């Protein structure tokens, strides 16, 4: 953004080109902001420019006409606001508003840069005499959304990466496929000599003898009998031919079995690897990926899509290999026997190939549409089944069923559409193949008539051509499942191709056991284009407890997310023991941090497993100790299976306070140096809060603690309280000091004291999202 070489404010024009003409002698261009809206808020490129003397506005970049120009002496302030996706820059003078300029949020960071440059100029600390700020075209899209391009079969080749570890099995499978094909090609090859050398000549002789008018009936009989005796010798070979055919059939059966088994085994392993890799990769992605993705969508990508690929690999691909080998094999045989006849009969083949190709894209699109509808359905399930209590409480079962039905209708509609193409497709192929057969017969008869080929060749030929077309037909039927698999593979690779947005350091520094000294140095954080944390400075001594309060949307949860490195700061740095946390391996950094959330999550498993989640090899004695300190031991003993009770989804139901105490025990067990409490007591009643508070006191002791609290009363023990408002620290001090002085803290405290309803206040975990409420001071105190 501040690179002086990067002047590309306008795609083809530079800011200098637009502004240059009207600059006065000696006037220097300092910053420009390319907006995507003009003054009447139509989509058109407009430009604001800041020189060392003037503020210039160009309503239309194209015609380079300056529409407004103000001397900087008259401009007292420049501010930006945004609402509903549109931002507004306002320049005011002593008399009032001078200029109002608009932009969409895609250009918000540009506006911020322009503002910064203006402020810098105002405060007289211009960064660099040569410096120039060009803003507007650095559009940041944190979660790039992939356009719905039709899935390509080529994606399937990327699966080869997963086949590599099983190369020997793959080779074995292919060899078996080849052998199966070869075995299948033998029988017609045996019928050919049988017809031509034995059957046809004999039949010819018999016919001649029968129709010979020169001999009488009795003599004819004798002669035929003699011929039969004589033919016994060549006919003796027939059983050998039959044996050969039987043998090849048996061999084909055995080989096909082996091939099927080998490839099925292979595909099962490939798809298991695929699932594992995808799941592991999903875990390496940062938190914002999960907030942006619907759970159902992810679940279906990992489960059904990998299954579809497995089916494709084991079933379709096996058949496909066998079929294509068979087609090549038969085609070779056909050309070997009679190239002219082969060329004539295979004339429908290009037609079939073209038709398949043409239909393919329509099928692909149709299948992809079906999957998207399917995702929507799984999303509804993932949404309503965990939320079933809300559904029931508001008696909205019917509505949910309707919602489900609507999506289901979409699935049916999408599938209907693709099925229409689909069902038309393969009978069409069958018909083309039949035509091919007719051509073969006709042309074959002609070739026999022309004495080019024998009947034996024609029989064998027809046997091959029938095989050819059956295989071709079955291959085209696979187009469907191939397209399905391609769509699935694409969806999986979409996940795999996403790189983690919290990068691991190239040269990691190992934090080891830290002392717990935490410093936030000039940190700012932007989510998308929103500035959520704005230049926060805070130094926390080892063992100190700092409470963070503030209204909803003040950036409290974001601060914690930054400390845990769920996101990285946009500017500034977070130092632990004097070292930037970005230099630590993410995992080692998090090992030093204990996190207790407002709504603790318990995994399906025993209580002991849940407590030992952060340290799976903790001894039973340690688990019990941690549970005791967290005031969880006794209620656990009341459960019929004690620490072996199953909790989590489908498990024993625990109250919110009980779950919270288990999560505190979990944090205690890893003995973190830095502890982060995110509204740990706000979802429970006062009685439970006391118990949790006791448990927390044990936890907090001797650790650096950063606690967000919704109930200010829970922060009485804090050494220091930091009041955040709109991403900035507005007050710092102890509870008593803050209460004594006028300010936001006292407002919040009084609001809570007056309203006893604050206990069921809204959790403000959503504030890490891009929505930041405006003008919240004084009302809606939840924080």
């Amino acid at each position, binding site marked *: 953004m501040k690179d002086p070489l990067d002047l590309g404010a306008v795609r083809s024009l530079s800011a200098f080109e637009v502004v240059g003409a009207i600059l006065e002698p000696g006037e220097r261009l300092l910053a420009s902001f390319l907006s995507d809206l003009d003054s009447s808020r139509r989509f058109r490129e407009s430009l604001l420019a800041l020189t060392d003397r003037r503020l210039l506005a160009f309503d239309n970049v194209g015609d380079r006409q300056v529409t407004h120009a103000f001397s900087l002496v008259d401009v007292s302030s420049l501010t930006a606001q945004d609402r509903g996706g549109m931002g507004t820059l306002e320049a005011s003078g002593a008399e009032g508003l001078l200029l109002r300029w608009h932009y969409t949020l895609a250009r918000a960071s540009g506006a911020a840069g322009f503002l910064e440059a203006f402020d810098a100029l105002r405060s007289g600390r211009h960064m660099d005499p040569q410096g120039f700020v060009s803003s507007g075209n650095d559009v940041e899209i944190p979660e790039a959304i992939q356009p719905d391009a039709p899935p390509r079969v080529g994606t399937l080749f990327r699966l080869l990466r997963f086949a590599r570890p099983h190369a020997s099995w793959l080779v074995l499978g292919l060899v078996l496929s080849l052998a199966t094909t070869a075995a299948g090609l033998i029988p017609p090859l045996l019928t050919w000599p049988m017809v031509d050398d034995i059957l046809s000549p004999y039949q010819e002789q018999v016919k001649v003898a029968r129709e010979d008018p020169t001999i009488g009936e009795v003599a004819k009989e004798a002669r035929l009998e003699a011929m039969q005796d004589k033919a016994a010798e060549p006919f003796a070979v027939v059983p050998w031919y039959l044996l050969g055919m039987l043998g090849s059939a048996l061999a084909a059966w055995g080989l096909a079995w082996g091939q099927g088994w080998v490839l099925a085994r292979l595909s099962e392993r490939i798809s298991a690897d695929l699932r594992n890799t995808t799941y592991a990769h999903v875990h390496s992605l940062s938190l914002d990926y999960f907030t942006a993705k619907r759970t159902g969508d992810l679940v279906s990508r990992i489960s059904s899509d990998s299954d579809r690929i497995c089916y494709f690999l084991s079933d379709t691909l096996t058949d496909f290999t066998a079929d294509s080998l068979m087609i090549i094999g038969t085609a070779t045989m056909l050309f070997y026997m009679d190239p002219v006849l082969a060329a004539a009969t295979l004339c429908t083949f290009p037609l079939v190939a073209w038709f398949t190709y043409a239909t393919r894209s329509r099928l692909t699109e149709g299948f992809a549409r079906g999957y998207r509808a399917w995702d929507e359905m799984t999303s509804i399930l993932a949404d309503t089944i965990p939320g079933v209590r809300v559904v029931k409480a508001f008696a909205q079962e019917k509505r949910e069923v309707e919602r489900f039905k609507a999506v289901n209708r979409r699935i049916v509609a999408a599938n209907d559409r693709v099925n229409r193409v689909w069902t038309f497709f393969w009978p069409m192929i069958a018909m083309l193949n039949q035509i091919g057969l007719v051509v073969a017969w006709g042309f074959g008869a002609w070739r026999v008539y022309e004495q080019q080929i024998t009947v034996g060749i024609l029989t064998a030929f027809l046997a091959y051509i029938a095989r050819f077309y059956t295989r071709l037909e079955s291959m085209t039927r696979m187009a469907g499942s191939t397209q399905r698999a391609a769509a699935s593979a694409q969806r999986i690779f979409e996940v795999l191709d996403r790189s983690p947005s919290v990068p691991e350091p190239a040269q990691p520094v190992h934090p080891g056991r830290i002392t717990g000294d935490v410093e936030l140095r000039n940190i700012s954080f932007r989510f998308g284009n929103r500035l959520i944390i704005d230049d926060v400075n805070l130094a926390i001594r080892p063992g100190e407890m700092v409470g963070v309060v503030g209204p909803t949307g003040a950036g409290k949860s974001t601060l914690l997310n930054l400390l845990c490195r769920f996101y990285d700061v946009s500017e500034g740095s977070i130092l632990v023991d004097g070292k930037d946390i970005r230099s630590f391996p993410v995992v080692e950094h998090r090992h030093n941090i204990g996190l207790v959330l407002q709504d603790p999550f318990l995994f399906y498993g025993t209580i*002991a497993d849940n407590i030992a989640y952060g340290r799976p090899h903790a001894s*039973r004695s340690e688990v019990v100790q941690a549970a*005791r300190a967290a005031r969880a031991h006794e209620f656990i*003993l*009341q459960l*019929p299976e*004690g*620490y*072996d009770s199953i909790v989590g989804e489908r498990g024993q139901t625990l109250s919110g306070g009980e779950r919270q105490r288990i999560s505190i025990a979990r944090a205690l067990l890893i003995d973190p140096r830095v502890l982060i409490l995110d509204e740990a007591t706000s979802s429970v009643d006062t009685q439970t809060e006391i118990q949790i508070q006791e448990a927390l006191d044990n936890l907090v002791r001797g650790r650096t603690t950063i606690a967000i609290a919704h109930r200010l009363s829970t922060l009485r023990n804090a050494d220091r309280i930091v009041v955040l408002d709109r991403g900035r620290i507005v007050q710092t001090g102890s509870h008593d000091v803050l209460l004594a002085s006028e300010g936001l803290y006292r407002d919040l405290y009084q609001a809570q004291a007056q309203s006893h309803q604050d206990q069921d206040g809204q959790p403000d975990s959503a504030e890490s999202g891009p929505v930041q409420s405006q003008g919240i001071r004084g009302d809606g105190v939840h924080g």
Partner: protein
Amino acid sequence: MDERNECTDEPTLGLDGFGRLVLQRPGADSVAGIVPVRCFPFTAPNERISLCDEQGREVHCIPDLAKTGDQTRELIQRELARREFVPCILKINGITPDSEPTSWDVETDRGHTRFLLTSEDHVRRIQDRGVLITASDGVRFLVADRHQLDGQSRKLLRRYL
């Protein structure tokens, strides 16, 4: 106060006239009506036996039953045996119908019985080979080692694992 209960010393246990367990504590009141509770009934049944009072508060904890004196161990084991009711399934005669809820007809170490299973989620594995089945009325049935069952029972059980 948290480590107070983690006693390594031998508790002094006795029985009072009502047959209740009484814990004598040096320098404190004795506690009657002691209820021994296994912390890890399946994964480590004989370690960490918590001695609770009638209100369910822990007053003493025994780290390892095997390392306590014979008399104490016997008292605790008798009390545990009196309280625990987890019949062991020896043979599954049949499970009907095919869909939930299912009725199980089983032979246990406490005789023949039937119970109702409302959801297959109530069948859980214990360690490697054990299976715990919680009937709809809350009674728990244990299969100590499913490999020791006869073929038919194993086949019936396999559907739920």
